[in-house]
């Protein structure tokens, strides 16, 4: 049986938390793509048609990366993609805050409070990013130890 030490347990909890967050973020968007497209459009960075394409593909990427984080075969790349997405989300929120946009986050679908509060979404994404980076580092080290190519 594999022995799990305390840091391993913390990382396992972090992995499950990040995966669950991405699943919870993806499912409402998949159910209401039009509303999510409106949230994307409200950031005023891309047009309505491009927003709709984002609303169609991004929730699937979130869903598969979220699930992928707990699948050993694809968990490194899932962590990498989640990190990139979180960096993108942080950048978008900072940009919207800087431009004084009064918009909802749209992070968990469109059924959110419309009052813009950027502090919590940015802080939450920074925490998730730190957790994902820690998970990715562990996965890379673990994978390197396990699979060394034969000469």
């Amino acid at each position: 049986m594999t022995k799990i030490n305390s840091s391993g347990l913390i990382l396992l909890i972090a992995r499950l938390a990040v995966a669950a967050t991405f699943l919870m973020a993806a499912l409402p968007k998949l159910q209401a793509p039009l509303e999510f497209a409106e949230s994307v459009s409200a950031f005023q960075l891309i047009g309505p048609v491009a927003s709709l394409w984002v609303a169609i593909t991004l929730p699937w990427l979130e869903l598969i990366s979220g699930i992928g984080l707990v699948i050993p075969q694809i968990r490194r790349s899932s962590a990498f993609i989640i990190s990139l997405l979180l960096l993108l989300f942080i950048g978008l929120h900072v940009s919207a805050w800087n431009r004084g946009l009064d918009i909802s986050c749209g992070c968990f679908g469109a059924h959110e409070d419309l009052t813009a509060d950027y502090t919590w979404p940015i802080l939450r994404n920074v925490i998730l990013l730190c957790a994902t980076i820690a998970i990715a580092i562990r996965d890379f080290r673990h994978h390197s130890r396990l699979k060394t190519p034969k000469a």
Partner: protein
Amino acid sequence: MFDQGDQRHSLFIVRSIFKELLCIIGLTFIGAAYGLLSGLSPKPWAKPELPAGAIHFADANVLNPIWLDARPVELFEQGHIEGALWLDPEDWESGIPTLMDTWLQNPRPIVIYCSSETCNTSRSIAKQMRDALPQAEIYYMEGGWSHD
């Protein structure tokens, strides 16, 4: 210095990550394609459906609504839809008494507009106003309005 073993190992890691990424991207596209084909997602190339609570100018005009202009006052002064009332986008609640006077004299739909397609103010105000005035029929105008 990297020896051959290290180089082979690095190449192996890059290749395996590349395969993983391809797998995730492939699954994402399969999911998106499923959404489009099953009708779960709207087709971007089709005429977009109007979201709930939104209305086009032509349809709103037929209703002879109370127009609420939620653009900055400078834009309102430059030009607005005939008969529109100005609503301070920063403090829309202050416009409620005037709006109620107009609405009580002749109850009809209320349509809020701002300046562009991506403007979110009218949608946001319409949502909050529906909670404040549940008996009124309130829309926001899709596409916004500008004085051109």
